[in-house]
């Protein structure tokens, strides 16, 4: 206390000296104000910084590359397609560029210390391949990240999301095309709207098309109005109308790509923002409450100050300083804490966007503490003004007891009838809050928001647990038996399909069919088996969608496997399929619609029976019978068996027993289905 007497200097204003006295006399109050502002400022800085940074990298790159607002795939003449560049509303266009989807093999050598097939393996992947003579253009001005643009027919530039085995000079084999031509990777380029996974010279595309694949072209557009999905839809409608009916095979909005790009942080940003807003409101209420408490507790003091000559303005100044000092310190430390907390989170975001480093924008660092200080200041000013306007006599009297008449009615009511049976001490306590109704209301509001925050947090935890259960299917199918070496085991955009020729002979692996027979026999023989079904997984490219589509095929009734249906029903029959929300978003289709998928020379028309809950890393996903999906992807084969157990069966013991009976398969208790974007083998 003695040390504080040295500040402020004797020459400082009386309001400052009175504020200093108030601060030193009410340290706990000052500490609470400071802590409330600290936490609120930190949370708000973090939330706002993440919100801004989750959008800005895409927007900056999109502007710099003059990104394609609509990427259309159509089967029409070059002249008809070129004419669409002059449609009303089209501000820029590029193309037509010849396009096809190809299956490619990339040789892979496992890194040192990582087990793999002897001599390495082959990474099999599907690519949307576009023919362009140069990376530049009025739309989708590609950024060449490494190497050079193709100068001869057997060269390719790959999208800069490097899959296994993809490096400058690597040779990939296009397996579906006649003669299985080879392409040498000569460069890597990035397209913000992911218009292709590989580019070659336009003259090369025809030679890379699989037999029977349609001769389609890609057109890239920018429009005068394309800020919303509705506007993009209208723009697309004008393009569709200008082309022969049915020739527009697919089109993708940049908004969809943006949504996918921001999806890594999008799910939790709303929660952080919600917490930030709740924190903001709570801090305002708590500050108002604490300040009102300070004013009420200090009302007698205000009366004394006025009696010795303080003007209302000086009283207000004194109390605002009393709040502003801890609030300022709280905001200052809070903004630093918010920036520190954002480092790991923004680091992850920067990695997703490949933009180097992200930081909380300077304007956020300035705006958030100013707003928080403003809130605290406003609460202080309003209450101090009210107190400052009281006469000194009234202030001194009010400081000793609540103002007369406040709460009288409550006291009267609580003193009569059934209430009178309660102990008097209780009824006095119950009536007490009515003596200061405003303060009681603020306290109630703060408690309300606190309860909301707790409920929100607890509910979020419960929801995430439910999401985990729905995604892992751990309740419905507690055991999954994987078949090593089967296609689809890598879970990503490609498969480690086969061993490359090795230097010497190795032990002969049983065929996939033999493994399947062994698994089925083991499952039939094992007590505790309730249901089982073969599951086939693959990721393929289809025309009109920038990212791959996940296929999940079942070899029998799989309605029990635990997929949560958002709408519609489980598929039945070979022409029906269930799809995830990502599929509906990217294609614009609805439950009940029929949709035709084209991959290479293969087509499949499905009727969408239901929408399932499976984010699948933002990718489209189709669940149908294996036989139906094989029409689109002939290589689709079972890679695992999903098993439901009879009640009381121990999943781990069951998995161990099945593992002992089946020679090669590796049964495991169910774990969350990994999304393709989390796989090291994924391709965007």
């Amino acid at each position, binding site marked *: *206390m*003695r040390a504080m*007497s040295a500040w402020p200097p*004797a*020459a400082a*204003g*009386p309001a400052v*000296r*009175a504020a200093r*006295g*108030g601060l*030193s*006399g*009410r340290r706990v109050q000052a500490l609470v104000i400071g802590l409330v502002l600290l936490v609120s400022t930190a949370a708000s800085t973090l939330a706002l910084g993440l919100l801004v940074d989750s959008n800005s990298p895409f927007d900056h790159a999109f502007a710099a590359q003059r990104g394609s607002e609509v990427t259309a795939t159509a089967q029409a003449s070059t002249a008809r397609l070129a004419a669409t560049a002059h449609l009303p509303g089209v501000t820029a266009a590029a193309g037509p560029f010849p396009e096809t989807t190809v299956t490619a093999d990339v040789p892979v050598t496992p890194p040192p210390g990582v087990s793999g097939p002897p001599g390495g393996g082959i990474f099999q992947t599907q690519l949307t391949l576009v023919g362009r003579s140069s990376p530049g253009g009025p739309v989708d001005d590609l950024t060449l990240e490494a190497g050079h643009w193709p100068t001869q027919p057997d060269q390719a530039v790959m999208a800069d999301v490097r899959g296994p085995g993809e490096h400058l000079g690597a040779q990939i084999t296009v397996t579906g095309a006649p003669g299985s031509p080879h392409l040498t990777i000569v460069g890597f380029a990035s397209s913000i709207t992911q218009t292709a996974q590989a580019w070659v010279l336009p003259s090369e595309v025809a030679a890379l098309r699989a037999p029977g694949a349609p001769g389609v072209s890609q057109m890239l557009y920018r429009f005068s109005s394309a800020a919303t999905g509705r506007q993009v839809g209208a723009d697309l409608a004008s393009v569709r109308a200008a082309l022969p009916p049915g020739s527009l095979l697919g089109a993708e909005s940049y908004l969809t790509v943006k949504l996918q790009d921001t999806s890594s942080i999008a799910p939790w940003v709303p929660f952080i923002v919600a917490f930030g807003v709740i924190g903001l409101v709570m801090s305002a209420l708590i500050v108002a409450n604490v300040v009102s408490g300070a004013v009420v507790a200090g009302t007698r*003091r205000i*009366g*004394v*100050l*006025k*009696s*010795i*000559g*303080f*003007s*209302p*303005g*000086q009283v207000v100044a004194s109390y605002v300083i009393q709040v502003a000092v801890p609030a300022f310190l709280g905001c200052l430390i809070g903004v630093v804490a918010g920036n520190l907390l954002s480092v790991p989170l923004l680091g992850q975001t920067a990695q997703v966007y490949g933009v180097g480093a992200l930081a909380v924008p300077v304007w956020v660092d300035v705006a958030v503490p100013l707003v928080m200080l403003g809130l605290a200041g406003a609460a202080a000013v309003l209450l101090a003004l009210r107190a400052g*306007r009281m*006469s*000194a*006599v*009234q202030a*001194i009297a009010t400081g000793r007891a609540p103002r007369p008449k406040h709460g009288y009615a409550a006291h009267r009511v609580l003193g009569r009838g059934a209430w009178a049976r309660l102990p008097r001490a209780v009824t006095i306590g119950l009536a007490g809050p009515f003596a200061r109704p405003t303060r009681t209301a603020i306290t109630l509001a703060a408690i309300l928001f606190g309860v909301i925050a707790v409920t929100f947090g607890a509910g979020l935890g419960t929801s995430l647990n439910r999401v985990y259960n729905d995604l892992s299917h751990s309740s419905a199918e507690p055991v999954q038996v994987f078949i090593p070496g089967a296609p689809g085991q890598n879970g990503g955009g490609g498969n480690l399909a086969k061993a490359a020729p090795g230097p010497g002979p190795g032990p002969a692996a049983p065929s996939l069919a033999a493994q399947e027979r062994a698994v089925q026999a083991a499952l039939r023989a094992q007590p505790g088996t309730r249901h089982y079904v073969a599951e086939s997984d693959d990721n393929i490219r289809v025309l009109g969608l920038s990212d791959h589509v996940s296929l999940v095929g079942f070899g029998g009734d799989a309605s029990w496997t635990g997929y949560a249906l958002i709408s519609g029903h489980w598929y039945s029959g070979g022409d029906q399929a269930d799809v995830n929300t990502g599929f509906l978003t990217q294609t614009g289709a609805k439950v009940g619609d029929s949709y035709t998928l084209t991959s290479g020379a293969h087509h499949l028309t499905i009727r969408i029976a239901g929408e399932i809950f499976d984010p699948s890393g933002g990718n489209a996903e189709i669940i149908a019978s294996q036989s139906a999906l094989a029409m689109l992807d002939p290589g689709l084969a079972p890679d695992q068996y999903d098993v439901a157990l009879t009640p009381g069966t121990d999943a781990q013991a069951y998995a161990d027993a099945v593992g002992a009976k089946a020679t090669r398969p590796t049964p495991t208790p169910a774990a969350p289905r990994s999304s393709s974007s989390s796989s090291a083998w994924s391709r965007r």
Partner: protein
Amino acid sequence: MDTLVRLTDVSKTYDSDGAPALARVTMDVSQGESLAVMGPSGSGKSTLLNLIAGLDRPSRGEVTVGGERVDKLSETGLARFRRRQIGMIFQFFNLLDDMTVLDNVLLPAQLAGMPTARARARADELLAALRIGSHGDAYPARLSGGERQRVAIARALVNRPALLLADEPTGALDSATGEEIGELLLDLNSSGQTLILVTHNPALAARYARRVIEIVDGRVASDAATGARR
């Protein structure tokens, strides 16, 4: 002697339908006078003092102090008036417990814009005269009742006010300490300080005031000189 305080037909009503705390009071107080206002509890004597100090406003009538119409002043004007004209002593001292004795005494001087060195010198002089000079750095909570009232008197006098108002200044003190405070007030008056003292103690009024007004039910019941020594 010049008139320092003039109340003309002053009434104060707290509740619109209640009885007035003061009813049509008219009185003058001259410069250098020592006046005791007496009456039973709730008679209106503290209300009278508050109206003169500008701590409250009359419901009707005029209050003039040092030629200034107090009832017409704004809140800021009243604050300025109190700084320059009024020194006030309360029954329960009303010191700021979070400030030292010296800071309590200095605060009105700083409000009045007195230069720092002069204010400090004046505060030291008062604390010494009131025999609490050694307590300058102490906080009021550590002082006895009598010492606190001395601090309150020092604070009231630091700006050399034209009028010193004392509301039951000995009411919270034991009789010996109360007598000391009474002697102090008497000394101040002897040196020319105008004093209005509210008390319900007739002996105190008779001993330390030269004139006594008695208020009953908000009205001046009597106004008489005493034989108090000067």
